């Protein structure tokens, strides 16, 4: 079974320039988005069981290659990096369109895996949008996934409950962090990974037009970015345990917190 894992490189630590309200990327090392590591781990365990080929797909500057090498060291077979200046500034829709275009060019992809969200923007849009462009079913927030013949059986983590659903293959699945413990590549895995293929494709190679990618292909307009201000308030409750607990319960109720 051929599996694609969508991977994003994110800054190792999330720091916001408080005056400009933008994410600081300069001088901060790029790493694999944490949830994407879980998606790669899932792909590798599925491959161990069902065979097939794992392709990592990403979009970004040239240095994303290092991040992809990490994914290859975890057990993926090849990587595709969409690397083109015209793709810069893409919103989630333009990103999903470009990723889906690559996936369509790959042979017989049965399963597309994504992390639930990214550490740097956290929209949770890209997975579902890729499924839309591919015209395949999507199952989000997955904590457990089984392949049963030509369909998948997935356990979804919802706010207060789990839901188990089935979908036909090909399908797209987004995974949550708790689904598994991503493996740490060994020294030899790292050196083996650098022998695997990482294909760099530009927009033209994919037949993408300028108005379909990057800023031009992005309908989203960001009007303001800001770091949420955390406010703390301290109130001392005094009296007997009964007084304290009833006053605490009333306070929480009046603030609509319970």
């Amino acid at each position, binding site marked *: 079974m051929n599996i694609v894992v969508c991977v994003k490189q994110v800054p190792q630590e999330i720091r916001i320039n408080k005056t400009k309200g933008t994410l600081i990327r300069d001088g901060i*090392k790029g*790493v694999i988005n944490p949830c994407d590591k879980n998606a790669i781990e899932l792909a590798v365990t599925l491959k161990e069981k069902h065979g097939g080929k794992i392709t990592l797909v990403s979009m970004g500057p040239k240095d994303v*290659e*290092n991040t992809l*090498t*990490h994914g290859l*060291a975890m057990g993926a077979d090849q990587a595709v990096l969409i690397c083109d200046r015209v793709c810069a500034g893409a919103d989630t829709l333009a990103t999903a369109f470009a990723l889906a275009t690559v996936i369509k060019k790959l042979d017989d992809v049965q399963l597309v895996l994504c992390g639930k969200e990214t550490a740097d923007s956290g929209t949770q849009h890209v997975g579902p949008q890729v499924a839309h462009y591919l015209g395949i079913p999507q199952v989000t927030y997955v904590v457990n996934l089984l392949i049963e013949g030509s369909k998948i059986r997935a356990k979804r983590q919802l706010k207060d409950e789990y839901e188990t659903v089935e979908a036909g293959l090909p399908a797209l699945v987004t995974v949550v962090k708790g689904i598994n413990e991503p493996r*740490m*590549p*060994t*020294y*030899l*895995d*790292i*050196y083996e*990974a*650098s022998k695997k293929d990482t294909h760099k494709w530009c927009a033209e190679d994919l037949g993408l037009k300028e108005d379909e990618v990057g800023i031009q292909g992005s309908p989203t307009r960001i009007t303001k970015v800001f770091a949420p201000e955390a406010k703390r308030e301290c109130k001392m409750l005094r009296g007997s345990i009964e007084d304290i607990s009833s006053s605490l319960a009333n306070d929480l109720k009046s603030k609509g917190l319970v």
Partner: protein
Amino acid sequence: MDFSYTKEQEVLKNVVREFCDKEVAPRAAEFDRTAEFDYSIIEKLSKQGLLGVIMPKEYGGMGGSHVDQAIICEEIGRDSLTAMVATNMAWYMAYECLVVGTEENKKRWIRYLFDGKKMGAHAGTEADAGTDAASVRTWAKLEGDEWVINGTKWFVSNLGKADFYFITLRTADSRYGGISTILVEKDTPGMTIGRRVDLISNRAISNGELIFENCRVPRENLIGRLNKGFLDMMVLYDVIRLYLAIGAVGIARGALEESLKFAQERRQFGKPVGEFQMIRAMLADMATEIDAARLMTYRALDMEEKGLRHTKETSMAKLYASEIADRVTYKAVQIHGGYGLTMEFPVQRYWRDARLCSIGEGTSEIQRLIIAAELLKSQNIVLDSALD
């Protein structure tokens, strides 16, 4: 000239960081407090193929480069210099055997010494033989097919934890030309552990006295050439010292990273202390010195890869890295103010641990003598007499 890491080295650095975040960083303060290191880290490191990567594949290593090995040492040293020193003890002796051992030594010992579990230790120092390493008085005399060892070693790191000890001792009555190295396995009758010493620096590395009273080991336990042990030791030091240098860089980097975090969080006079020029000057000097020390160490490691002589460059790197580690960790405590003096912040531990670097594996003073001798091409008080 290429100052950048390869693609593989970038990934290696990330993977070792991931390992350390999980296995080393959360335990480092505990090792220091309890003066006990958790040796299971060595097996885990070995399972990841990250232990002694410079050892050749035929001996169970990875055949990796010295820079790869240095990347691993720096990351571990960043969280705990103790962990770096301890994990290196699981491959140093095999490396020694590889560099100075005879073909028979290599066949007989390397695989045995380097199995990802066993720990080694080196016993050189004695009560009256430290920097003047050639003045050792522990003797080994050949009786039939056995060496009989008598004497007392002091400041033996990994004491009681090691599975085998490499003993620097006297095998002939010549100051420099009578030194050899003999391997003694733990629990060998005649070798006992004496007084233990309580350290302020790298507390979890067990240390103290090792006593030999008619301790008998087979003739084949002689490592390297008979009576050429002093020269062999100097050759080995040219490389081994660089790993302490990169450990010093690691610990200094840890001190800087903690200081950067603190300087941005701690507020005084209505703003983060990192906004004040005097703190900024300290941070800038710390970062600059760390960078210089790392580059000097890599330069010497690169010369080793290329088969060039680098005695001077090694001593320069070891001297500089050790001394900046001391300065940088001192400044880290200073930036932390009162918090720097509490056991709740790691910088006090970095400060204490860094103190080892300018004393262990050749003091800063002996490094300066070596550098000066190399510069002046004059008689090297140590090496030339050894060559007589």
